[in-house]
């Protein structure tokens, strides 16, 4: 009977408990790390633009594209059996590793970026994600004290004009307006 080569260790049957634990840890790593990676990239894109859609899309592209590229590089083309589980391993390692690097190891430099990202998310009413990002940045949000918001100070939104509750189609019947309007200014 042929013996497995050393490099075929991956194909040996592993204990069920380990397989279960490995799967759970990988799933947690992908979810937590995926969120952290997205937020990290969004905060980096936020250096350039505050536009939410731009941050989201670019971060998503980077978050998926980089580990996908790495997976493609690491996949053994001539031996597909050894690639079993490799993509998820790469994704889990990349996501959690990048999050660890950005949030923990580079905390001093990335804290302000994370706080700004969390502020943006909070303003966009993504309150729960913002809370998590504040947690990553080792801060917690507090409302502005009353004395810092003097009466008369506006608190929101720029630009003008109103919103889309527009009417439909028709213009009205020619109405004979009441003569009670004097017409004089």
């Amino acid at each position, binding site marked *: 009977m042929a013996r497995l080569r050393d490099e075929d260790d991956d194909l040996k049957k592993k204990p069920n408990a380990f397989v279960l634990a490995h799967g759970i840890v990988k799933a947690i790593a992908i979810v937590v790390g995926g969120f952290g990676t997205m937020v990290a990239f969004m905060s980096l894109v936020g250096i350039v633009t505050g536009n939410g859609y731009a941050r989201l899309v670019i971060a998503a592209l980077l978050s998926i594209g980089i580990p996908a590229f790495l997976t493609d590089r690491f996949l053994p083309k001539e031996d597909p059996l050894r690639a079993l589980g490799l993509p998820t391993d790469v994704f889990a390692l990349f996501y959690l590793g990048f999050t660890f690097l950005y949030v923990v190891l580079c905390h001093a430099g990335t804290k302000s970026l994370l706080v700004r990202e969390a502020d943006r998310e909070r303003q966009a009413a993504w309150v729960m994600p913002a809370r998590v990002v504040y947690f990553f940045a080792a801060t917690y949000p507090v409302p502005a004290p009353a004395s810092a918001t003097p009466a008369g100070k506006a608190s929101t939104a720029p630009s003008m004009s109103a919103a889309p509750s*527009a009417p439909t189609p028709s213009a009205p019947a020619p109405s004979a307006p009441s003569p009670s309007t004097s017409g004089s200014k």
Partner: protein
Amino acid sequence: MRSYVVFVVLVFLLIGGFYAIITRTREAHVAPEPEIVVATFEDAGNGKPLYPMLDASALDAAADGSSTLDAGPPGKLARPLRVAALGWDVAAPGLVEPAASLQVTAVDATSDIESRIGRGGGDPDGADIAVVPLASFVASYEKLKALQPEVFLVVGWSRGREVILGSSGATLGKLSRTEEVRVTSGGIEAPTMLALVAFDAVGVAPDKVRVLPFAPDDKKPFFVMADRASLDGGTVGAGPSGQKVVLTSADAARAVPLVAFAARSFLDAHPEDVTSFAKQWFSGNVGVRADAAGASRKIAAMPKAPEAVFLLERLGQMEPAAADDLAPELLQELVRHEMELWRAAGSSGGTAVSALPVATATLTALAKPGPADAGAKPAPAIGPKRGGNVLLVRRESPPDGKLDEEAFGATLAWLATVFDRSTIRVTVKGTGRTHAVVSAAIERLHLPARVIEGEGQPATGAATIEVLAAL
């Protein structure tokens, strides 16, 4: 082997990272408030509305007067009066002269106004009073009806923010009541209302107006309703794709009044605060008019405010209410007319209102002080001008050929009100009829001298009304 290595590394990163984060000293950070979010008025899929502040129980409570929405105890408010204004320019009078008793917030969208009024002024993110174009109030009325919102004050007029553009061949002077009128809309209430008023003035029947989602590709005439700020480059006189301006709210300022409204429960419980707000707002109007550049700079320095030059332009497109704009009859007529137009256009989605949502108590209280308490002195009377560009033409063609002079006079009065600086030129079919009809209408309805008799006979129909451009 790989699996074990990956497992160990992941466990290390998870535990190590989690430990590092939770053992850090966490600092307080003053965070911005979330924006008011109102997604849509649709069901969330579970039978509950996505409009949390106006769920059924709150609406029912508001309707029977036992509102959980804070109208505050009767009498003087023990907290600042909260005001939400649609746009920084509209909010300007409340921002340039801060007062401890007044807290003004500029918001971006009508949905924000609805949400804040729904929350009530007791909520830090709510509002007691809203200042909006009347068209926005009309558009929001159905959503806020349970609160019984009432307009209680005209604070100003839009003079040029709203624009109707026409493609080649599209003018209000050549519109026929029988031809289809094609329009595209940006979905903004005030320009839409301006267009409704203009088409109504011309006499176009509702079923003749067709709204298109995009500008058509063919060469047939069509109109575009827009806010001037949304035009590329804001070029006066020309819009995108070569369309030309055919009418603006500068021509028809009375079509776009800026009004203040509040829930009836609040108006009834705090009349003194409401009157005080009106006086403060008019005082702010005076301040803005006296130094628009300074006001623009002051507001531009506020967080998230637009640039000063943009504000200055917008402030120049508004006019504060004058003393004689405080007449209750004027406010009632404006609200009635615009609500009818909006409903006839099929937009409100509701039934006719049983009573006009207008409260006149504040106007009555303000009527005693002199013009200095309003935003501006009354403009000098505009003299008639015999010639000039024709903004729009209305042709009266009754089926039996006989002109209903009473209704015709009322139409003249309305046009003279809306186009408050334009000459209204009238011709009536029949020898000497023009003079007889016009002079009778002027005498009966106290029409201004801008209503003049035209020469000759109308080309078609029993009578013609032409509105001439003021400048």
